[in-house]
């Protein structure tokens, strides 16, 4: 079982709700993914259209936990205020904390991230910080009170997969007891399987599902990949070698030369 703060989850796939072709495809994709947690956001609501109200009723009907994000926030104050607003609207102390430092790569501003995490943890939030694979930043986030870390695989929406395999492996080895959710940059199910094979506890996917030709089919494919990756990790993968090792025994081989 995956444990994020005090919540136990069967599914190791967390799913974003953005950029689906339609609300009904979003609903079907969440079901096909088996995800028990979906990320949501807060945006300006028009008093006339009230678009957010319809979206919220769709998400509530899914019966899953929500993880509100602070996407698009560039300062500590913005992120902290957004977290407060999200806690009230969504009725959860969970927050996916994003403090964006740079617009081209959407790389987290890790200095602002640690500062915002410290404030929010002290206020009773259960913070899921969107971070890099940097070990010292991870340490600071844990000191700030975070009990889950969400390192990126590669830039948000890029679909490039696990960009810094060495860094991610080092992070996993350095914090064996901390739930680590690989967030951002996963493009295809094999990337997700790879993250789980390396011992990461879960993955958070959005664009790879919502922008697939068939999001519902892709959601199902990711569900299988995450299960396969976790089962492989549990089974203990072999060590890679530089030279060939015959798998068929040589003893008893006929002499036919």
């Amino acid at each position: 079982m995956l444990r994020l703060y005090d919540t136990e989850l069967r599914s190791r796939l967390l799913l974003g709700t953005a950029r689906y072709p339609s609300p009904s495809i979003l609903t079907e994709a969440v079901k096909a993914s088996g995800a028990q947690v979906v990320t949501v956001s807060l945006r300006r609501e028009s008093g006339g259209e009230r678009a957010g109200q319809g979206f919220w009723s769709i998400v509530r009907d899914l019966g899953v936990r929500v993880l509100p994000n602070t996407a698009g926030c560039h300062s500590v104050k913005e992120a902290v205020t957004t977290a407060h607003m999200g806690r009230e609207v969504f009725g959860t102390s969970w927050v996916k904390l994003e403090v964006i430092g740079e617009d081209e790569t959407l790389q987290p501003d890790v200095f602002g991230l640690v500062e915002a995490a410290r404030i929010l943890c002290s206020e009773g939030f259960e913070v899921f910080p969107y971070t890099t694979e940097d070990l010292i930043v991870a340490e600071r986030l844990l000191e700030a009170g975070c009990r889950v870390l969400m390192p990126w695989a590669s830039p948000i929406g890029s679909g490039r997969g696990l960009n810094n395999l060495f860094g991610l492996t080092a992070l996993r080895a350095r914090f064996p007891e901390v739930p680590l959710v690989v967030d951002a940059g996963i493009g295809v199910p094999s990337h997700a399987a790879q993250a789980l094979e390396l011992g990461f506890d879960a993955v958070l996917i959005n664009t790879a599902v919502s922008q697939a030709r068939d999001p519902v089919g892709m959601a199902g494919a990711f569900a299988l990949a995450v299960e396969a990756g976790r089962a492989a990790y549990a089974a203990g993968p072999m060590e890679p070698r530089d030279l060939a090792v015959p798998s068929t025994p040589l003893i008893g081989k006929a002499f036919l030369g």
Partner: protein
Amino acid sequence: MRILVNGASREIGAADLGAALDELGYGGAVIATAVNGEFVPAADRPASRLAEGDRIEVLAPMQGG
């Protein structure tokens, strides 16, 4: 008075945030509010007096990753 609601200039008759939200069509909606960059919890909206030029943000659940 004139205030900014989600970046757009609006003329309102209400004097506090709670009444202003009703006037602007948000009655009963699931929203979170901020005035001049500061979060105003739902319970505090009726007591939150508005002044000319105040910047109000009204946010609601939206798709997110």
